[in-house]
């Protein structure tokens, strides 16, 4: 048994996962969950390698508890405040996640040897926790493994940023498992801004207990291929899960958001809100599902996906899905694809604002509906600033 050809230089950690992966292989369009994104094709063109660390230093943008991961190599973490433990090295995903899902990229992540980042939160943590992924080696592969636990009643926020040097081709296959205990609150932000030739595949699984709150806010600024998959199991009553995202794409970018929220207990709420702007031949994919178990009465589920296309060749596809087995629920979903409103554009230009700035302002306004939900001021402003910058490059 060996690792697939496109991954070089890695050791095998889990033979069983690898066997299973090799049985299934990379997903193609025939796989329902990957209907719009043919991973086998995406990964057929190039070989990616395990690379060495580098002395890259970056600013602490968010004044955070910071973990640096350079070319897949995790740096040391010191000066931790009380109430949080971060260990790097051994770790384990739940059996349920690896063995039952039979998800090829989860299996691949688990097959490959690599350090875990284990984050245990036992007190309220005011500072942001920042995992800063940065790559500057050519054709780098990295397969992050992150496990986050937050204790009952505690609150914390975690941000992951993905950046790469110019012309740096990247394969990232990230796997994150999150345990949100009763009455806890975990806010998660993920910002993909490789801006270049990166294949970014991420899977997040969150288990949300009674009266707790979990949210993920994802932003993708014009990367080549991005798949952000999130599955949330709401396991206790009166809990709330929100998964939101913003994406901006140009050239031939592909951005796939695949979200599944499983309501397994009663009286819970969930929200999925995604907005995207696409130019050139970029493609947006949104597969959102709300699953409501027969036990999950009084579920309130909401799902919305809106996109603006700036070119005739850009496209969005996907499917919203509701699967409901309880009878007393409130679920809604919707989607829309449109252009910049010409009347609004004329109103702005008739006031002296040039057309490029006017478009930029209108698109920011469109995406701000998502950012307005972000509690953390520093993160929200950072995202808004990057949106303006990215928009200037795609307009």
């Amino acid at each position: 048994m060996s690792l697939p050809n496109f991954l070089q230089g890695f050791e095998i950690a889990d033979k069983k996962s690898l066997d299973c992966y090799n049985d299934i292989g990379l997903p193609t369009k025939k796989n329902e969950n990957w209907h719009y994104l043919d991973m086998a094709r995406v990964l057929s063109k190039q070989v990616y390698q395990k690379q060495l660390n580098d002395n890259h230093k970056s600013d602490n943008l968010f004044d955070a508890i910071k973990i640096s991961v350079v070319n897949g190599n995790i740096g040391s973490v010191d000066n931790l405040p009380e109430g949080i433990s971060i260990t790097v090295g051994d770790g384990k995903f739940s059996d349920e996640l690896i063995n039952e899902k039979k998800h090829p990229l989860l299996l691949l992540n688990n097959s490959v040897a690599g350090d875990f980042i284990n984050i245990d939160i036992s007190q309220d943590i005011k500072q942001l926790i920042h995992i800063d992924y940065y790559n500057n080696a050519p054709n780098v592969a990295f397969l992050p493994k992150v496990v986050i636990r937050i204790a009952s009643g505690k609150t914390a926020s975690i941000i992951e940023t993905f950046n790469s040097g110019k012309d740096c081709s990247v394969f990232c296959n990230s796997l994150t498992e999150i345990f949100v205990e009763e009455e806890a609150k975990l806010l998660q932000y993920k910002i993909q801004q490789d801006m270049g030739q990166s294949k970014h595949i991420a899977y997040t699984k969150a288990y949300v207990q009674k009266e707790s709150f979990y949210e993920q806010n994802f932003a993708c600024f014009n990367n080549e291929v991005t798949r952000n998959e999130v599955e949330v199991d709401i396991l206790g009553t009166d809990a709330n899960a929100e998964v939101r995202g913003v994406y901006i794409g140009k050239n031939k970018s592909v951005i796939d958001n695949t979200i599944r929220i499983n309501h397994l207990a009663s009286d819970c709420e969930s929200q999925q809100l995604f907005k995207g702007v696409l130019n050139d031949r970029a493609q947006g994919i949104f597969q959102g599902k709300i699953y409501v178990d027969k036990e999950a009465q009084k579920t309130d589920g909401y799902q919305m996906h809106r996109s603006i296309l700036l070119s005739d060749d850009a496209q969005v596809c996907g499917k919203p899905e509701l699967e409901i087995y309880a009878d007393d629920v409130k679920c809604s979903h919707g989607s829309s694809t449109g252009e910049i409103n010409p009347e609004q554009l004329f109103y702005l230009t008739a006031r002296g604002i040039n057309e490029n700035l006017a478009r930029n302002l209108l698109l920011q306004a469109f995406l701000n509906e998502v950012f307005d939900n972000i509690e953390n001021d520093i993160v929200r402003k950072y995202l808004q600033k990057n949106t303006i910058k990215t928009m200037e490059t795609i307009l």
Partner: protein
Amino acid sequence: MDLLNIENLHARVDNPDGQEILKGLNLTIKKGEIHAIMGPNGTGKSTLTKILAGSDEYEITQGSVNYNGEDLLEKEAHERANEGIFLAFQYPVEIPGIATSTFLRHALNAKLRHNEKEEIDNLEFIKLLRQKAKTLKISDEMLKRPVNVGFSGGEKKRMETLQMSILDPHLGLLDETDSGLDIDALRTVAEGVNYIHSKEKGFLIITHYQRLLDYIKPDFVHIMVGGKIIKTGDYKLAIELEEKGYQAYGV
């Protein structure tokens, strides 16, 4: 000197089966003059103002428009605005997600930049905005809202007037700015126009009612029917129309 000179303007809706709307329109506005256009619904009054402001909804098939001696139709909408043309829209559009004050600051700074002047800083701008808003009885709360979102009909018209007074245009095109205004607001809007009016500036005021013209005295009143101006007179023409309607003009 002519501020605006429109000659034999023909325009149609810019789509494959778009009908002709302006059918040979002539109009000259000299500096310092106030002109009013009256005319039945659907005769092309708003179309005219939108064309002057640079809308790309329409295709010009014949004729010319000169503004300050330059070919206006060559210029893009934002250039026209920055060179002093202001259209107070008949139906101001709502723009969720952009705060009124942010929008207006961008607009004012665009104009300042265009005229090679220094941009206004944020604090100074807010002061200016508050002061102008107060005279138009627009609350701070309204300024914080997104552009025109949730405004009543009359509030939208007052907001157009506020924008005009901040951008201080050379040629103001007011498309039914009086419609939907209460008596007090009508007076305030008229005061706004009279306040910025000077011998360098011109106004084109479109209205269905003589009432507004009681407050803003026009030098000329034109009747527009079927995409062109068919009669020009002075203030008395407005009074006559108010009494008799457009029947005498074959409408």
